[in-house]
């Protein structure tokens, strides 16, 4: 049972936030509100009358619109085409629709040009298109699922301005998040859910972030806090002048990236998504051949090595998209423990899979890393995001790694899992690993890194000291607002 006894009221014309750990039942609640899933018991009422939502189209008919965390836009379509897709009957697909989009954009200050190509637009604009899409379909209640996860601080502020605009026009906004500062700044009312139950509904003026977090977790709040420096002068991972050319004539995806990570050092990379972080990781992991440049592990040139050799040599890898790159969702946990280490003990004996060894070690990982599962034989897809990630982290730390490449290691995981993953990264640092940490969570970067590099359009544009830098400074550097490279060291 994902949800039981959820109950809250949302006033018209307000921003109402719902906070809770991942796995607390937020997504299930959203699915119920949007008609994707039907509740076993209980009712939903809008304007005092009870509604029955059997499908998203019912929800839309009742004026409920949903903006998903992952945008559902076709890149090669214009804004207009994306907006009318599936709603062709409302205002046609031509002038009528264009005029309507302009009207909505002006009314709510969304600043959307109907004929722009989505591929040319940034993340913030894409999110506003998603909002416009639901307004276009006549939504009076808008649900936003973790809308700030993909935005830099400046874009978050813009989004919040938009939300206030919507509110002042009499629309109701349901805002799902686990970033508490943001929730406190934008919401008129906050409902906390934990383990599928509403814990409390509070007024943001009467609580601070810590109290809110404690309501959410039911315990103390963890913070990412680095300890004393453990950085040594032994270079473990060195990247020299990596260039990766883009498709066709477009600019280079990676343009002369050089990095050095020492034993005991966490190097953080900050950047707006899509500025080359993913490609950099793929180059290091041997999944992508760079146009030029070298990668060294210690003194060994591993530029020509393939992924398997690189992993065998002690590079642990936490991919950014765990469902696509780190797990076989339809395979049991113990087979997932083998994945990525198909050639290593205790998973294999020669060319034969050692199922007994892998199972025993999976039991150990489940215990040591607190993976919540009834058994190691359930499919990985049945676990919550945080538990999936703990399994992955446990697996990667089980082969005496020298380097840890962690891309968004705590994305979409609950506060409890987040804190244990931070602990593991800190422990790795103490154990003398070289850690490359890529994250969109600036707090996390500042809290864990020894050095932060900012990546913008495939170039490293600035080095920051996490002790002195603020999230706003990083945000400015990430969007290029700060101009040229900025040294604060």
């Amino acid at each position, binding site marked *: 049972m994902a949800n039981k006894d959820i109950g809250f009221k949302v006033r018209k014309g307000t921003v109402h936030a719902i906070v809770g750990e991942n796995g607390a039942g937020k997504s299930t609640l959203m699915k119920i509100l949007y008609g994707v899933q039907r509740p076993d018991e209980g009712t939903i009422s809008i304007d005092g009358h009870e509604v029955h939502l059997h499908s998203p189209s019912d929800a839309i008919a009742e004026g409920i619109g949903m903006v998903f965390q992952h945008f559902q836009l076709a890149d090669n379509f214009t804004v207009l085409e994306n907006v009318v897709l599936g709603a062709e009957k409302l205002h046609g697909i031509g002038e009528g629709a264009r005029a309507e989009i302009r009207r909505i954009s002006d009314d709510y200050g969304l600043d959307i040009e109907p004929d722009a190509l989505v591929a040319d637009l940034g993340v913030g604009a894409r999110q506003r298109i998603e909002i416009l899409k639901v307004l276009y379909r006549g939504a009076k209640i808008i649900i936003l699922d973790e809308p700030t996860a993909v935005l830099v601080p400046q874009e978050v502020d813009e989004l919040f301005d938009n939300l206030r605009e919507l509110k002042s026009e009499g629309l109701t906004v349901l805002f799902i998040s686990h970033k508490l500062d943001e929730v406190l700044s934008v919401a008129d009312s906050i409902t906390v859910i934990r383990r599928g139950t509403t814990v409390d509904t509070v007024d943001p003026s009467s609580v601070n972030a810590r109290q809110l977090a404690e309501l959410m977790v039911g315990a103390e709040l963890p*913070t990412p806090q680095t300890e004393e420096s453990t950085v040594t002068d032994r270079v473990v991972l060195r990247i020299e002048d990596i260039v990766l050319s883009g498709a066709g004539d477009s600019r280079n995806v990676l343009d002369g990236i050089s990095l050095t990570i020492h034993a005991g050092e966490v190097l953080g990379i900050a950047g707006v998504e899509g500025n080359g972080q993913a490609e950099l990781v793929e180059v290091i992991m041997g999944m992508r051949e760079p146009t030029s440049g070298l990668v060294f592990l210690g003194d060994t040139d591993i530029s020509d090595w393939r992924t398997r050799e690189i992993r065998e040599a002690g590079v642990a890898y936490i991919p950014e*998209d765990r469902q696509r790159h780190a797990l076989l969702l*339809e395979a049991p946990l113990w087979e997932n423990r083998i994945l990525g*280490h198909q050639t290593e003990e205790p998973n294999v004996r020669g060319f034969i*899979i050692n199922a007994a060894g892998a199972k025993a070690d999976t039991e150990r990982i489940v215990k040591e890393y607190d993976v919540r599962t009834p058994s190691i034989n359930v499919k990985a897809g*049945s676990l919550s995001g945080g538990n999936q990630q703990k399994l992955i982290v446990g697996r990667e730390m089980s082969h005496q790694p020298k380097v840890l490449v962690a891309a968004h290691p705590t994305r979409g995981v609950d506060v*409890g899992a987040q804190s244990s993953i931070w602990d593991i990264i800190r422990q790795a640092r103490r154990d003398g690993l070289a850690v490359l940490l890529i994250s969109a969570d600036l707090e996390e970067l500042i809290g864990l890194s020894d050095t932060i590099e900012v990546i913008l359009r495939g170039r490293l544009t600035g080095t920051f000291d996490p002790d002195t830098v603020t999230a706003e400074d990083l945000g400015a550097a990430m969007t290029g607002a700060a101009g040229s490279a900025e040294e604060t060291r």
Partner: protein
Amino acid sequence: MSTFSPRKLLLAVAAPLLALVVAFLVTSAILLLLGDPVVEVWQTILSWPKPRQLVQIVNGATVYYLSAVAVAVGFRMNLFNIGVDGQYRVAVFAGAAFAGQAWFPGPLNVLLTIVVAMVAGGFWASIAAYLKIRRGISEVISTIMLNAIATGVVQWLLLKVAVKQQGSNTISTKPIPESSQLSGLGLIPGATNKVYTLILLAVLVGALYWFVINKTRFGFDLRATGRSESAAIASGVKVPRMIVTTMIASGALAGLIGMPLLFGQDHSYGTTFQAGLGFAGIGIALLGRNHPLGIAAAALLWSFLDVQSNALQIRAGVASEVVFIIQGVILFAVVIAYELIRRADVRLEQQRVARELAATRSDAPTPEGATA
């Protein structure tokens, strides 16, 4: 693969049984509509086969089994080798031409012929593999094309090497020497005909298939690629190499399909050699869920329907082709049923995990964030 549980077994058997029931109903409806004698048709098909027919069923299933395993190898990594038909034609022709030369004595000739057939089948499949990894051409398209090309090439080569058989206008390769012909095994009492000796080959192939797929590193990589190519790449699997290896393995196995027929029945490859075996294999692999025992059951069912339908014309006055309707509906129904059951399984397990975790939580309410 994972631990045995009654729930899994039930789910595994439910879909094929459901498909059989649906096929029974749909076929009955069609027969009724056309005014054919429904009862007689089912009486004929469902009667217990005579010993001679049992042998035919086993023999047919042997060939189907090899074909389906060849297809299943590809299926396990989401590689759709539709070209098993062409690969087995090329292979059996090459094998028959080689065996007919009788360069080697008796059993050695058999063994080497099998190797030649596997190489030929693997070679034909490697063309599609090359096109896929180098040119990005879908193996579905290329193998279908290669089937057509295989038919032409084999016919053309057959004309070159053919020997004219006396008193017949069919042409074929030179018959294999008697010392290399396999007379068969008398497994079924009361039957005058015999089971193909190379049923042993099918059993061996099945066992090897199970072992390699489920127990070896190669098999793990193959299944991982089938389940999620992106995760396989990130785990270090060289996917292009896997495509080539698997495609060639599939083709080499396809090369075995014609061997029981060649050594146990036809003794040469000619224009009358059984066709369409590769396509039947696709359906049988689907029905058998790519599982070595599942495929065996599916192959036996297919062959059973084939053999039992022979008597339809005489006993029920209905064309034996009605069996194609039954087979087709079974496949349709089973594909749908498998998907429905797969989804139900995923949902049930998610609910079960959530329930069991909720139960343990209330026993020991330790907050997980307390470590910091």
